[in-house]
């Protein structure tokens, strides 16, 4: 696709022209500028990426274009010209004729974007009928659209409700709705953020294909540089409500001209770099629109900032062909590459200990609702025979898609779910029974870092109260607790000023630091980190990852690091386990698993992960079809066989996969894999 685009010269007339768009949200006397003076063009057939973190104004920009701003938001200034017609001044009735007809939108969360009580066919047909189609032809077109977006068995599925669809399928339906009236412009607002990596790959490929086939222009809003690199032609980087850099994707990736873009590219872990390369974290947090810093909004986090940056907002100035950047330093011809504050390598904490702090053997966890009076329920094993060990001072990365059982595994270790079968030993003690004494052993040895740092702190309690409570549990009280609390906070990079604050006063990164401090109060030897960075902004993730690495190395902690993001796992892990439908399908050192994956699922995961590298070939990738089956009804034999690119679904002679469950055995490459044909699959041979 990139190759095709390269030979095209953009036509002179842009499809959409956004000029000096300024959008404000007025609450009482306060007026908050969410988007300030944003201008860009979208040419026919091009894919424009808008990238930014939370609060950057990217979604507001999209909604301003669609006229879908939620109250009290309104466009204060500027024009949005669609084929030369200004949409901002159009009366609502006129605008309604354009929405869905000429501009369509795909939303982030396919769970929420479909009306749960309407059949999907009716929802597609509605999009056609409000623009004049009759019921019969609308239904026919709906069927065609569903087939086009790759929904199987259309005759049946058209009359199903959204909840009967998987997440990926739902997003396909949303895309079908968007494409219903052959729009000229498609605005996709983080269309894959809520999806698993294998599904994300499916949807991205669908969008790319459809865009090309139907010659639709796409505005792709995302926070993921990998997605941008894979799909977009042009890129707009937003920060603090303004465009800070824009230009062709390839050029920007090769040579960013704004410190923010440059820092962002450095702060994202990559699949192709090993964990020894320290990430260069961007300090601080993205600003909230209500409290934008004066001058360049990025200056408090910028390692290159000069005095002028602090007082004067830099204009978006041309920087060579098709490129613009809003940076005083760049304008003056200075270097915008981030200066690593602390690039010194840390020493790993001694030799790996021989004795695992956590050992799990043949663990099974039943998550079925308990049977009621007079009836029993069939067991559902979300974790079905998992064995692993975590040593102090090392990180075991655990990857897998949502529903694979990785969170259930961690909850079982913490005693939140009951063990159905198997054994958990913590510091050589069998704690499977989770008697009170076992529980104490567990909680003093293992602690837990949660995914959502907001949800894991009680909003009604101050930081100090939260940590004191944890200290009290391990018997530290009174003045000793005060001292220890301050120590812990400093350990995670927070001053004691935070003691009397409430969680809502803290940014996501700060809250996650508090979560870590709280976990450390019990002096654990193992931390279970359940997606500790996935809820954080890209620029913050690096900070937390670095902190976790530092703590591991300084304190000799062992981590069970659970994540769906393969790049992050690669960065932090010594060993990696890949989980699918309750079982571990591959386990080995990070180098082994990433360097030469043996299980076809691992291969597919790796090749589905978008990378911030526009030059990477996207054509020859292993993209899985379908969705993960439900753990309530796992397939016979190999659990992966229904989606396996080298399995019986594609090669019918491979009967063994249908009948026999493969054991986790060592492969020639060193790691263990559970596949009858381990090592056969290679990236790009789908």
């Amino acid at each position, binding site marked *: 696709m990139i190759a095709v685009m390269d030979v095209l010269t953009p036509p002179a007339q842009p499809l959409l022209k956004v000029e000096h768009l300024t959008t404000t949200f007025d609450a009482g006397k306060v007026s908050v500028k969410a988007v300030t003076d944003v201008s860009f063009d979208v040419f026919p057939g091009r894919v424009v990426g808008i990238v930014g973190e939370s609060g950057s104004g990217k979604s507001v920009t999209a909604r301003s274009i669609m006229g879908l701003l939620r109250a009290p938001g309104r466009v204060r200034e500027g024009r949005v010209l669609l084929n030369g017609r200004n949409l901002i001044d159009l009366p609502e009735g006129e605008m309604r004729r354009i929405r869905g007809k000429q501009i369509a939108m795909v939303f982030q969360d396919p769970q929420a974007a479909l009306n749960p009580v309407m059949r999907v066919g009716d929802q597609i047909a509605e999009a056609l009928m409000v623009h004049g189609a009759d019921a019969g032809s609308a239904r026919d077109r709906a069927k065609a659209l569903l087939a086009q977006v790759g929904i199987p068995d259309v005759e049946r599925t058209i009359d199903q409700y959204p909840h009967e669809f998987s997440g990926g399928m739902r997003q396909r339906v949303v895309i079908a709705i968007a494409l219903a009236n052959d729009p000229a412009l498609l605005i996709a607002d983080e269309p894959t953020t809520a999806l698993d990596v294998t599904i994300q790959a499916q949807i991205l490929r669908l969008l790319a294909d459809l865009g090309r086939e139907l010659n639709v222009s796409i505005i792709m809003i995302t926070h993921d540089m990998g997605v941008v690199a894979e799909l977009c032609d042009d890129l707009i980087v937003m920060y603090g409500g303004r465009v800070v850099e824009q230009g062709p994707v390839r050029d920007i990736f090769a040579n960013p001209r704004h410190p923010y873009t440059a820092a962002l590219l450095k702060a994202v872990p990559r699949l192709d770099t090993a964990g020894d390369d320290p990430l260069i974290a961007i300090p601080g947090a993205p600003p909230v629109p209500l409290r934008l810093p004066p001058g360049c909004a990025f200056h408090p986090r910028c390692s290159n900032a000069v005095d002028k940056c602090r007082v004067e907002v830099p204009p978006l100035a041309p920087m060579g062909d098709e490129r613009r950047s809003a940076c005083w330093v760049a304008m003056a011809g200075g270097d915008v590459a981030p200066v690593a504050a602390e690039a010194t390598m840390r020493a790993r904490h001694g030799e790996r200990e021989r004795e695992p702090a956590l050992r799990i053997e043949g663990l099974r966890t039943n998550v079925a609702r308990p049977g009621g009076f007079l009836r029993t329920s069939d067991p559902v094993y979300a974790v079905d025979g998992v064995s692993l060990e975590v040593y102090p001072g090392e990180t075991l990365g655990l990857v897998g898609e949502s529903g694979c059982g990785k969170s259930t595994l961690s*909850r079982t270790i*913490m*005693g*939140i779910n009951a063990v159905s079968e198997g054994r958990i030993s913590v510091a050589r003690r069998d704690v499977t029974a989770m008697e009170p004494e076992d*529980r*104490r052993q567990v*909680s*003093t040895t293992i*602690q*837990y870092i*949660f*995914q*959502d740092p907001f*949800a*894991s*702190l*009680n*909003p*009604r*309690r101050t930081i*100090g109260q939260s940590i004191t*409570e*944890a200290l009290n*549990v*391990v018997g530290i009280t009174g*003045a000793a607790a*005060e001292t220890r609390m*301050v120590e812990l906070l400093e350990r995670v990079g927070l001053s*004691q*000023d935070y*003691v*009397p604050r*409430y969680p809502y006063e803290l940014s996501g990164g700060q809250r996650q630091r508090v*979560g870590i401090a*709280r976990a450390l*109060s*019990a002096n654990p030897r193992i931390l279970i980190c359940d997606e500790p960075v996935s809820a954080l902004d890209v620029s913050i993730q690096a900070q937390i990852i670095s902190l976790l690495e530092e703590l591991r190395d300084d304190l000799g902690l062992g981590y069970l690091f659970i994540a769906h993001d393969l790049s992050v796992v690669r960065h932090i892990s010594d060993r990696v386990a890949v989980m699918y439908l309750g079982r571990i399908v591959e386990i080995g050192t990070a180098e082994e698993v990433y360097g030469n994956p043996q299980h076809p699922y691992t291969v597919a995961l790796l090749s589905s992960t978008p990378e911030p590298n526009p030059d990477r070939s996207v054509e020859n990738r292993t993209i899985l079809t379908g969705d993960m089956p439900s753990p309530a009804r796992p397939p016979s034999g190999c659990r992966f066989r229904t989606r396996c690119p080298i399995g019986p679904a594609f090669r019918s002679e491979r009967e063994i996969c249908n009948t026999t469950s493969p054991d986790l055995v060592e492969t020639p490459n060193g790691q263990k894999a559970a596949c009858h044909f381990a090592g056969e699959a290679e990236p790009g041979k789908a």
Partner: protein
Amino acid sequence: MTEISTPSHKRSRLNPTLARYLQAFTTPKGQIALALIVLLAGVALLAPVIYPQGHDLQTRDSLLPVSWAHPFGTDELGRDILVRSIYGLRTDLALASVAVPISMILGTFLGLSGALSPRLGVLVQRALDIIVGFPGLILAICVVLVLGAGWTALLVAIVVGGLPSFGRLARATLLSQQHQEYVIAARTLGVDKWRIMVRHILPNAIDPIIVQGAVFVVAAVFTEAALSIVGLGLQPPEPSLGILLNIGMRYITIAPFYILGPTLILLLLALAFSLLADALNRTVNRT
């Protein structure tokens, strides 16, 4: 926390929960509610000062219509109905101010009991279901009959009547909060169940319960009035709004003004607390 009080610590703040509730009084609804409650409670509190002669000043002027001397007229024993209404309001407010908190606390605790043992929680839930199913007034009447008419019986009847609504709210909070990560976090830290219930779940249950409490003030007066209708309210000559309405109803054809005064006061009271609940609800949901 005093040892480490640095200047930044001194940004001493009002208890944020309380501060949030106080915010309710910045909305127009909240202000009307506040004004009404201050007015009604003030008049009720000061009744003995304003009318030192008391509420039982009987004269031979029965059932006088509305006049300057008697803005609400006089009752069958020649007593000023305005005075009796105000003393009645005093009675009802006193009753509510005792019964509502007790019902709130007890109901909340019952609703949260599932935090200590899921089995207990289910049991309590069933018990509350049964109370809900009971025809409300019949339960109250039975309670009063068993305990004998009077303050205690009324209190118990009101408290029991309120348990299900508070219990259910608390239980709903429990069910939604018990899977929240911070509760799980506390559990994984090894915090004991009582503490989790009191420190983590209870604060989240308080909002809806405070709102329901304001609603329940009206329900408490309603129970009192309903029991008076069957003659099992408070002992004479203690006036209550319910008793005034009950007796007034019997004179409705020859002295319709009789119930007008108590009705108006009850309406104001109901409005005040309904507005308060509304304002609290809005404020609580906003933050």
